């Protein structure tokens, strides 16, 4: 029983550390997004709170926390309350299978624990996809429960968009699964060790660079970000599905959107860009005689790759105008889907030929 208790305690510690890291990242992102957008548009961004506006996220959080919590007249109270939670939980639950660092095993009180992944389950990536697809419920139910036409239309748009682009996300990663022959993110990342030429995006015999492009575009659409932010198009729908939300419930939707961004960036770097593997064989820290500290370098590489993807999200937002709805659907079904399917066919043939030649 003590062994079980210890294991539960360790897992809870891991979960709280990772949830803490994700929430801190989200706080950083809200500031970083406004700063990056500001610099790209040749202005300063937030400057008032703290040095160079660095305390702005806390000011925002306090403001949202103390705002009046309004439930609109005629709204479905139960679903109006449940919807932000339904959006938030799927966004956080996926982090359970992300490998943050090397596949080490540490001994702790007679138990062997894996410090850098909460749970290495054999359907890792499918688990993430399954729960990511549930995020649409929060949005569609929030839109419906608000009893507002703008919210309802925003929610329905978002559901259609998420379903369409989810398919492309799923098909884009099939090529990676063929290359690595496993669904576990830990195995996929381990297989990409030893230099950037082994990363799935550039790997022999079938570089997944097209799949990476399809994946990134589709995830931008799936997280409702510019240029695919039609569910919250200000000029048409006020603010889309969270028009009627205020205070903490609004903050939950906001948190869910940013946590989803972090999650898809983590998956992108783990699946396509080698995860925690450095772009050169081995690690520099083990080369200079500190192999026990090599995990610091590896986790930093993972963080660097993830933050690069997050920067790409901001970059796209500053650069591109919003698509029209029919353009969005046509682009998803007639451009991205054929590319993803062709990538699967080419990858399968290439892997088969490579196996025969071996």
């Amino acid at each position, binding site marked *: 029983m003590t062994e079980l208790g210890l294991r539960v305690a360790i897992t809870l510690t891991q979960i709280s550390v990772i949830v803490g890291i994700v929430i801190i990242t989200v706080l950083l992102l809200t500031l970083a997004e406004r700063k990056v957008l500001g610099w790209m548009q040749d202005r300063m961004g937030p400057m008032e709170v703290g040095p160079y506006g660095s305390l702005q996220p806390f000011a925002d959080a306090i403001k949202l926390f103390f705002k009046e919590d309004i439930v609109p007249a005629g709204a479905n109270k139960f679903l109006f309350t449940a919807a932000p939670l339904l959006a938030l939980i799927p966004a956080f639950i996926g982090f359970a299978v992300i490998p943050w660092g090397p596949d080490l095993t540490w001994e702790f009180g007679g138990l062997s624990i894996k410090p850098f992944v909460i749970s290495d389950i054999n359907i890792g990536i499918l688990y993430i996809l399954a729960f990511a697809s*549930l995020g649409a*419920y929060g949005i*569609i139910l929030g839109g*419906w429960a608000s009893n507002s036409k703008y919210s309802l239309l925003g929610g329905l748009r978002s*559901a259609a968009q998420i379903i369409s682009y989810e398919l492309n996300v799923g098909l884009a990663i099939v090529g990676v699964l063929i290359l690595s022959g*496993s*669904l576990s993110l830990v195995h996929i990342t381990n297989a990409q060790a030893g230099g950037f030429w082994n990363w799935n995006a550039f790997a022999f015999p079938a570089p997944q660079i097209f799949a990476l492009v399809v994946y990134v575009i589709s995830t931008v659409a799936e997280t409702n970000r510019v240029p695919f932010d039609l569910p919250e198009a200000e000029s048409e729908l006020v603010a889309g599905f969270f028009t009627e939300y205020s205070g903490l419930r609004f903050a939950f939707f906001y948190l869910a959107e940013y946590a989803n961004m972090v999650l898809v960036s983590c998956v992108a770097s783990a699946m396509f860009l080698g995860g925690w593997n450095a772009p050169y064989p081995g690690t520099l820290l083990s080369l200079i005689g500190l192999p026990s500290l090599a995990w610091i370098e590896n986790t930093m590489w993972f963080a660097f790759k993830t933050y690069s993807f997050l920067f790409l999200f901001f970059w796209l937002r500053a650069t591109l105008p919003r698509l029209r709805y029919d353009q969005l659907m046509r682009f998803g079904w007639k451009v991205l889907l054929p590319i993803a399917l062709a990538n699967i066919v080419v990858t399968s043939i290439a892997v088969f030929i490579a196996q025969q030649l071996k």
Partner: protein
Amino acid sequence: MAYVFFGYFAGVIALTAVLVVALRNPVYSALALLVMFFHVAGLYITLHAEFLFAVQLMVYAGAILIFYLFAVMFLTEKTPDRYHMQSWGSLLIGGAIIVEIAVLVGQHGVSFGSTVERTALSSPSEEGNTEAIGHLLYTSYLFPFEVASLILLVAMIGAIVLSKKDLSESPPS
């Protein structure tokens, strides 16, 4: 332990399945269906079928039910009472089905428990769950698999034809 989990999942599945048809608000019905899909997925986990768990959530909860909600939100605002009427014929059919189930349970009720036990405690195969399913689908069950995909393709073409009514009338542009 396996019985406790099975009992919980089966109980919630039965309860929510009744709620799907009993609740008057169609959105609540859809939500009850969502809870049911979750617990069916949980049942797959107790059977060591992780792949089916993920597919159950992705396909049924993540895609099909969203489309149900989509239709429900658009349609039911105008005609709420149309779906709440029952004809006496349904009572007749329902009674027949209940008698059938009673007869079946009466015949096989004893062996029912042992079937559950055998399935729940079967050990997972040596290779991974996903590989095992893929292997089975492309060897033993290749023909049914291909037939099923052909039927789905026909249904897809049918849906496209139905939605494009003016296919023959409009001149090619």
